[in-house]
């Protein structure tokens, strides 16, 4: 507080000043960049480049200050008070940086500053004649976001009167690791789309419309694609785990906001290949980078302005809406204006030669992806459009989305398998037969097997309109088999060619192939991941759900039968006698599920009351799992309840249990049970997609690093010795991390495994709870000697932990608390139990050394092993090919050569 009693925060002052300075610097960079390139003034261009770096430093400072404010509980800053509180863990305090609107805008600016610094540093020499325009474009975006921050949403704004003693904190539903990393993933994806847009505008403004700018932006669009995919899947995973409605995607406006730019980014990654190979689609690619960037801004506008009514929207702010509308108008006017201005330079040199060509397949792919983006946009904005047209607000639901997106998706799935099989320019009949035979046979065989063993897949579903019905599941599974066959064939043939060329073993050839042609084969892995995800999506058509109320928990027989068990009998069609619905029979596993309600447990701790049900899960009369769905009621969140679902993950289906209500007096409980077929494959498919994206992103210098060098016998011996040392280091490192599990004390009371309620075990857990922050800190530093998973005595709920907590409180009472009391507690416990009782060793060295040894050793082992593999796969140099081997080979020419050689060989 200052003398007038107004809250004073030096962090807020410095933070606001740094934002103002960054704003001024960004404006300078815009002017200098444009003037520098327009007048070919190298100094001005350099000034704008260094200004961009300085901008990054200022934004970094502002970001560090706001994080510091969170960690030090500076509640005089309104943003900190709104999104944090003292009792939150440090992790959630740090991540509260992007937990609110103001901070998320600063986070956007920070990520863009980091990305633009890297992009400009890497490219400014290669693109001297347009880098000024690129910097100016990026800085215009930064000026926009800083305008919002400074004039509207300052994260450093302080209270004018007495600040609160504690903050509001974060809703417990958001205190979940998926929800922590979901927003920054999406933001990173959004921000990454700015770099290609900036380079596109730079190319248009400078007139440098060859393919050079494309090579600089492809990796950024790949980063955009990767992080958007990650953000979307994390959001879905959070919804699945946390919200208890059994699903992961609902076509909500907030979800769609992140999905739309994903479509156009994917389209660009494909059409960029056509421009590189055939010099076509230049205008198209420029439009795509513009549309992708536009959609990232539009999605943000949609969810924060109130333009779309949704309970999942992030707020309604007319002032913010107007700012975004003006900015979007500027983007469109400038971009379209420049494209029209340069249209004569953008005319293509070549034409499509055949419909049966890879170019046409990519074009079709682009059209469908664009159609998907605009359909989602149209359907999401439907209420706003209908209100503008006739005054009534009308929305469309998930069923409408699925009717259109399903056929689009299946077409894309087909193209994911077919396009790699087609040749550039024109595919001959012989090649068609040669390439398509195996995948088509695999598809046909899959369809036949499904019709025999899983006849439910031939059920008809409507697409586009009610009158159009097709066996969608059957088509889906058939196309998945087609894609698998196509990609497997590509890998096999490439591997065999390389094996013949290099004389190495198949595995070495495969690894070498993927490293040399990582764009191609990384892309194939992404396609494979998408196919696996479609396998998971297919299960949605077969999910089952019931609500059940069971009056009392009870004892059941060994095969799960009793008064407290529940399932549904099969329903028979009265006309045909056939089973009408397969209730709780896994549609692809044929498992028959029943559930038993065994007990209801009520526990409470400092933060929440928890009601947990113990459910036995039976498959065909055999008990396969015990699960604990729960409801938590947080004391400090005005009655905020959270649903803690219990999921039994299986390959063919998830068994998903929700405790929807319970009466502690009567022990009556309400359950909702889902059987979600094939959902595991959605998450697994994403992992494959992420792997493929990472393969595509492997930089050339990594490939060069693992390339072999000539070695002497001494060098080979040194390799062997180093490998042995690394292996020993790994063994030592992992062994020293292991701890023998001590037997649990007989008198200890532990919460049953899987209940997941932290320290809410009741009984001992509630004894000797900390009464001061120092006591809590000390208890979190001391490991419980009972050996239960190395929990500290604050969290452990056994008798030993309760007794030791009492000892901590007694020592603190005697020593008077504070730092001295804390030290006295630590010293006393170390004297009794040794340093192993500490959660954090006093000296970091013995703790860090095994970890470092393990990490470094693993990395070095991969490096040396990779080098050994690649070496085995490289042809021995001969006089004939030595000169050729000395020339660097570009991926696109290698791909082109392979395709043409394949055509010649047919």
């Amino acid at each position, binding site marked *: 507080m200052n003398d007038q009693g107004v809250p004073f925060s030096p962090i807020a002052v410095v933070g606001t000043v740094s934002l103002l300075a960054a704003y001024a610097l960004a404006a300078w960079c815009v002017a200098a960049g444009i003037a520098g390139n327009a007048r070919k003034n190298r100094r001005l261009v350099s000034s704008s480049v260094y200004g961009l770096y300085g901008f990054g430093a200022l934004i970094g400072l502002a970001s560090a200050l706001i994080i510091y404010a969170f960690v030090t509980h500076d509640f005089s800053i309104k943003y900190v008070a709104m999104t944090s509180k003292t009792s939150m863990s440090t992790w959630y305090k740090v991540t509260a940086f992007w937990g609110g609107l103001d901070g998320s805008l600063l986070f956007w600016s920070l990520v863009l500053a980091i990305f633009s610094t890297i992009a400009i540093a890497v490219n400014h020499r290669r693109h001297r004649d347009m880098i000024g325009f690129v910097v100016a474009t990026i800085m215009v975006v930064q000026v926009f976001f800083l305008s919002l921050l400074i004039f*509207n949403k300052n994260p450093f704004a302080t209270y004018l009167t007495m600040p609160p003693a504690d903050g509001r904190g974060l809703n417990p539903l958001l205190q979940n690791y998926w929800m922590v990393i979901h927003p920054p993933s999406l933001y990173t994806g959004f921000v990454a789309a700015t770099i290609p847009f900036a380079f596109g505008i730079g190319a248009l403004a400078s007139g440098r419309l060859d393919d050079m700018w494309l090579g600089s932006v492809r990796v950024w669009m790949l980063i955009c694609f990767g992080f958007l995919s990650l953000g979307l899947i994390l959001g879905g995973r959070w919804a699945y785990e946390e*919200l208890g409605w059994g699903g992961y995607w609902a076509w909500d406006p907030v979800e769609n906001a992140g999905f739309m730019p994903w479509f156009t980014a994917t389209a660009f990654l494909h059409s960029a290949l056509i421009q590189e190979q055939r010099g076509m689609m230049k205008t198209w690619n420029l439009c795509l980078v513009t549309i992708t960037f536009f959609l990232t801004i539009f999605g943000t506008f949609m969810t924060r302005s109130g333009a779309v009514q949704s309970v999942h929207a992030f707020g309604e702010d007319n002032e913010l809406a107007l700012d975004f509308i003006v900015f979007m108008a500027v983007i469109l006017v400038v971009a379209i204006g420049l494209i029209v201005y340069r249209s004569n330079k953008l005319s293509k040199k070549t034409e499509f030669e055949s419909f049966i060509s890879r170019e046409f397949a990519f074009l079709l792919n682009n059209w469908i992806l664009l159609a998907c983006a605009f359909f989602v946009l149209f359907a999401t904005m439907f209420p706003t459009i209908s209100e503008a047209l006739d005054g009534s607000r009308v929305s469309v639901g998930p069923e409408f989305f699925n009717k259109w997106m399903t056929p689009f998706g299946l077409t894309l799935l087909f193209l994911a398998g077919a396009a790699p099989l087609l040749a550039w320019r024109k595919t001959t009949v012989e090649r068609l037969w040669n390439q398509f035979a195996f995948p088509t046979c695999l598809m046909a065989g899959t369809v036949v097997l499904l019709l025999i063993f899983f006849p439910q897949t031939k059920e008809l579903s409507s697409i586009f309109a009610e009158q159009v019905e097709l066996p969608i599941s059957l088509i889906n599974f058939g196309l998945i088999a087609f894609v698998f066959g196509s990609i497997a064939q590509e890998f096999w043939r490439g591997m065999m060619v390389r094996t013949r060329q290099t004389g190495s073993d198949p595995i070495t050839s495969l690894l070498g192939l993927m490293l040399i042609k990582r764009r191609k084969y990384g892309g194939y892995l992404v396609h494979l991941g998408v196919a696996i995800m479609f396998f998971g999506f297919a299960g949605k058509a077969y999910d089952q759900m019931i609500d059940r109320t069971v009056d009392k928990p009870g004892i059941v027989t060994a095969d799960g039968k009793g008064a407290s068990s529940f399932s549904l009998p099969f329903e028979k069609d009265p006309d045909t006698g056939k089973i009408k619905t397969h209730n709780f029979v896994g549609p692809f596993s044929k498992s028959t599920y029943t559930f038993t309600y065994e007990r209801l447990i009520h526990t409470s701790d400092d933060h929440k009351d928890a009601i947990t049900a113990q459910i036995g899960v039976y498959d065909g009369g055999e008990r396969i799992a015990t699960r604990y769905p729960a409801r938590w009621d947080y004391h400090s969140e005005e009655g905020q309840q959270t649903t803690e679902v219990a999921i039994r993950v299986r390959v063919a289906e998830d068994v998903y249990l929700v405790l929807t209500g319970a009466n502690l007096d009567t022990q009556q409980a309400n359950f909702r049970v889902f059987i979600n077929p094939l959902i595991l494959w959605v998450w697994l498919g994403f992992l494959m997609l992420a792997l493929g994206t990472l393969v595509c992103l492997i930089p050339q210098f990594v490939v060069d690093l693992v390339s072999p060098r000539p070695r002497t016998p001494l060098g080979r011996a040194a390799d062997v010795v180093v490998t042995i040392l690394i292996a020993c280091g790994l063994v030592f490192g992992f062994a020293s991390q292991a701890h023998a599990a001590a037997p649990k004390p007989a008198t200890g009371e532990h919460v049953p495994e899987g209940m997941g309620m932290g320290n809410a075990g009741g009984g001992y857990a509630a004894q000797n709870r900390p009464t001061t922050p120092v006591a809590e800190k000390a208890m979190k530093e001391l490991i419980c000697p009972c050996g239960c998973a190395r929990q500290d005595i604050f969290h452990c709920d056994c008798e030993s932990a309760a007794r030791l907590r009492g000892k901590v409180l007694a020592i603190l009472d005697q020593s008077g608390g504070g730092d001295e009391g804390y030290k006295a507690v630590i010293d006393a416990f170390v004297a009794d139990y040794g340093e192993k009782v500490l959660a954090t060793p006093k000296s970091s060295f013995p703790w860090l050394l095994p970890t470092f040894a393990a990490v470094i050793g693993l990395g070095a082992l991969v490096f040396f092993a990779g080098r050994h593999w690649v070496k085995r796969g490289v042809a021995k140099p001969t006089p004939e090919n030595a000169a050729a081997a000395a020339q660097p080979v570009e991926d696109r020419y290698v791909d082109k050569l392979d395709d043409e050689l394949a055509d010649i060989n047919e």
Partner: protein
Amino acid sequence: MKNGTLAKVGLTAAVVIGGGGFLILSSKSHAQHYEMVDKLIAKGFDGFKEKQLKVHGFVEAGSIHTATVNQETRRTFVLQMNGKKIRVYVTGPVPDTFKDASEVVASGRLVDAGKLQPVADQICSNAKPEDKVGCPVRSDAEQGQVVEATELMAKCPSKYEGATSNKVDTNFK
């Protein structure tokens, strides 16, 4: 393969217009009206009968009554906005953020209030003693029509409170 520019433009326009027109036509069968409580009441109920409807409002504090009837959890509560109110009936679980004063969208259809009076009576008679405050509930106390909801959506727990902007008010001493 060579196509005239005019043919390409014509084909593109045909696809866009045809596809767009088909899209708009097909959306009619899936349309769901979306209204705030006050706007719904101002417009009158006649235009929304037999139609799927989403009603957006805030739960009136103290209006939630819950009971288990025939192994199903049944609820009734009042949605209000700007002083206008409408009663909602829903069966099954509700979102975690559903509580007094929470922002909710109820999806369902309009039904004559009298038709669901027996449900209101059942809820009141089966409710726990602490939930009987406000009972008996008159189904037509707010409007002649009530919302029979098949789904409830409650406000996402987000801190993006965008309504009020933060002005710079830091003391620079």
